[in-house]
């Protein structure tokens, strides 16, 4: 026995020690991995005061998504970065944060018009590998899927879209002798209806259509660019990247504005040029009964709900009607499409990127997506959500109607030169509103001069 023990015992002890050490190493390794997993922290940046209809609604939504996410993924900590201020302030802050890998937010929600800029700077990670098996992304209409498509890869995905149509006050239309439901077929039909309203109700504003620069680039997206989208040549930027500064479509659009303001059919400049949220003013005017028709964004309908109260108008669903914005000479509807998209920072580690994509998965769950749509005034990007009662009942019948209009919409370009171009067309529309004697051709020449001066002759082009 002793002999046996003499030879075996050391081996047993040595073997036990090795096993113990291996187990300990594995265990330690496991703990380390778990520890590493628990240390994953992601930052999520969003505009605190501009995306949602009210700041508290935004806070409620983001906090709920964060809570749900952290329950699902207890090893990940989410730091919500609520950027205060208007949209330009948010964009400046985000651009500066992206400059450094230490401050770049892992995940950010930003306007679709910024995607190409951020991608060209190298700020965004390709989402294509994550989206291969995504069930929700497969349900996006093609036009929305392509919103973040650059060079065959997707860099951002929509969390909600804005499109534009016509709102009208049914009682005023009836007083003006216009049959309901009203659906103009051409731009001339819109002018004719506005003239009838002016004749029947001289004290009210016949037609609201955004003009001027006060609302920033979005103002044009909710106004004049929708008319351009329905013109004979709607191109803003050619495939070679040149900005269009002269085209039949631009002239048609500016001539339409000239007709509106020279005939006294448009809103006063005190409203159009108001720096105080001009695109939302029509919802207050309709409530007061001082506006006949408006070229307005989908979110106006939500403004009249109790939750948004801008202002609350319980009778809006029966008092107001919605129609598609026709193309210049008929043949369907037109609208611009601009959304707010999620993008993951190129500075994110693979663990952070996975965690950020999982956060997007939670945000894109049907309830979360629809609530974001309702509270931020967006049409959800998942087509099947457009008929879900949670969405349609929130601002009936407006939400459903704008969902139906969305397939007629087209995306706005996303490039550095767009911000200059849009300033040019907003200045042109502002001039037409302020000085109604200005012709469409004169306004177009001013716009052409401004954009060419800013971008250089090689960056602009004329379409025949």
């Amino acid at each position: 026995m002793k002999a046996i023990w003499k030879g075996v015992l050391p081996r047993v002890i040595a073997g036990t020690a090795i096993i113990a050490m291996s187990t300990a190493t594995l265990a330690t390794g496991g703990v380390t991995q778990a520890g590493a997993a628990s240390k994953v922290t992601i930052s999520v940046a969003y505009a605190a005061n501009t995306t949602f209809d009210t700041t508290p609604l935004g806070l409620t939504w983001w906090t709920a998504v964060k809570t749900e996410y952290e329950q699902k993924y207890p090893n990940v900590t989410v730091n919500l970065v609520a950027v205060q201020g208007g949209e330009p302030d948010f964009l400046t802050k985000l651009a500066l944060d992206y400059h450094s890998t230490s401050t770049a937010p892992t995940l950010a929600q930003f306007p679709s018009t910024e995607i190409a800029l951020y991608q060209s700077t190298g700020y965004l990670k390709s989402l294509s590998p994550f989206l291969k098996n995504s069930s929700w992304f497969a349900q996006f209409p093609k036009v929305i899927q392509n919103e973040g498509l650059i060079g065959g890869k997707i860099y951002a995905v929509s969390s909600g879209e804005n499109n534009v149509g016509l709102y009208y006050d049914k009682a005023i239309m009836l007083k003006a002798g216009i049959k309901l439901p009203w659906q103009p077929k051409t731009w001339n039909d819109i002018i004719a209806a506005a003239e009838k309203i002016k004749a029947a109700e001289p004290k009210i504003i016949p037609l609201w259509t955004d003009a001027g620069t006060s609302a920033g680039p979005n103002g044009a997206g909710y106004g004049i660019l929708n008319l351009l989208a329905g013109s004979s040549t709607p191109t803003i930027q050619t495939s070679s990247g040149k900005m269009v500064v002269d085209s039949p479509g631009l002239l048609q659009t500016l001539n339409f504005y000239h007709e509106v303001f020279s005939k006294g059919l448009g809103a006063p400049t005190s409203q159009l040029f108001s720096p105080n949220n001009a695109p939302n003013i029509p919802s207050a005017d309709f409530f007061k009964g001082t506006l006949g028709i408006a070229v307005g964004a989908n979110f106006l309908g939500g403004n009249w709900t109790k939750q948004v109260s801008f202002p609350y108008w319980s009778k809006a669903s029966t008092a107001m009607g919605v129609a598609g914005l026709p193309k210049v000479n008929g043949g369907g509807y037109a609208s611009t499409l601009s959304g707010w998209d999620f993008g993951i920072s190129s500075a994110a580690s693979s663990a952070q990127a996975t965690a950020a994509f999982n956060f997007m998965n939670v945000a894109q769950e049907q309830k979360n997506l629809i609530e974001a749509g309702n509270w931020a005034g967006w049409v959800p990007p998942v087509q099947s959500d457009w008929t879900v009662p949670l969405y349609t009942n929130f601002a009936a019948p407006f939400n459903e109607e704008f969902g139906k209009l969305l397939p007629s919409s087209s995306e706005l370009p996303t490039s550095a030169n767009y911000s200059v171009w849009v300033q040019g067309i907003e200045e042109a529309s502002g001039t037409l509103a302020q000085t109604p004697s200005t012709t469409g051709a004169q306004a177009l020449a001013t716009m052409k001069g401004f954009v060419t001066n800013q971008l250089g002759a090689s960056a602009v082009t004329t379409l025949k």
Partner: protein
Amino acid sequence: MASLPVMDTVTGPSMSELWKTRHDKSRYQWSSLGLLTPAFALLVLLFLVPMGFAVYLGLTNLTLVGPTAIHSAFTGMANLERLKSDTTFWSSLWATGIFIVGSVVGVVVVGYVLASLLMRARPWMRMIVGGVVVVAWMMPAVTAGMTWYASTTGGGAFSTLLGIPNTNFLDNDPLLVVTLASIWSMTGFSMLVMGAALRNIPSEAIEAATVENASSWQRFRMIILPLLRPTMTAVVLLTGLLALANFSLIYIMTQGGPGNATNILPLYSYQQAFTYNNLAYGALIGNVMVVIATVFGVFYVRITARRL
């Protein structure tokens, strides 16, 4: 009897040494350079380095976002060439000139008139009017901008009081209205400074001129104005610089619009840097403002040096 304390003898240079020292030449104590070093370091760190960097930035292609946001390059005179042919810049410079001249003239004239009227006013009236004017001066630019915006647009206080409620003064004459707002917001400063200077004018001089049958215009032109000139020069310089840097007031009221009607240089610089993402070009426009401010500074130094 207690003895008196013995005074220490102060030792110093002998008379012969003092005679050897030249007093008609500037003398330097080289050891004082060490004491000046912190101030010099601050000047370099907080002024010369940032200014030099701003000048360099103005000659690059740096953008806020886009391919050259991270990897910018020196582009030589390209931005200056662009500036020369930038019609918006020249119209912005013109608007800036009108805004500054209008603001300065208004502030000096209204400030002087108020100060001289208040000198003759009853104490209670002086307190109320002076207080109101000073409150306007101390008001943050954001509040002043909102007040003037609300008062001068359609349905605002001015148009309602004048019985033309739909008239939109701000959009009809934007540069005039923002200049008036600027005058309103800076007059309190001018009034206080002018008031102090007026009180320092010897009353004997005025009385003597009155005895000699000098008219009020002659008293103003021959006595008051020359004695007020140094104060007025300081007010002109300071209000000119404040007007040149007046971003907030106009941004709140018009954001530089309608069109480019009120797009003065600070706003155009901001617009280029943060709306169009052209940080470098925005910096170059900022450098133009520094040149203008320097001209003001040189003007002030020359005038004050002449007085000395």
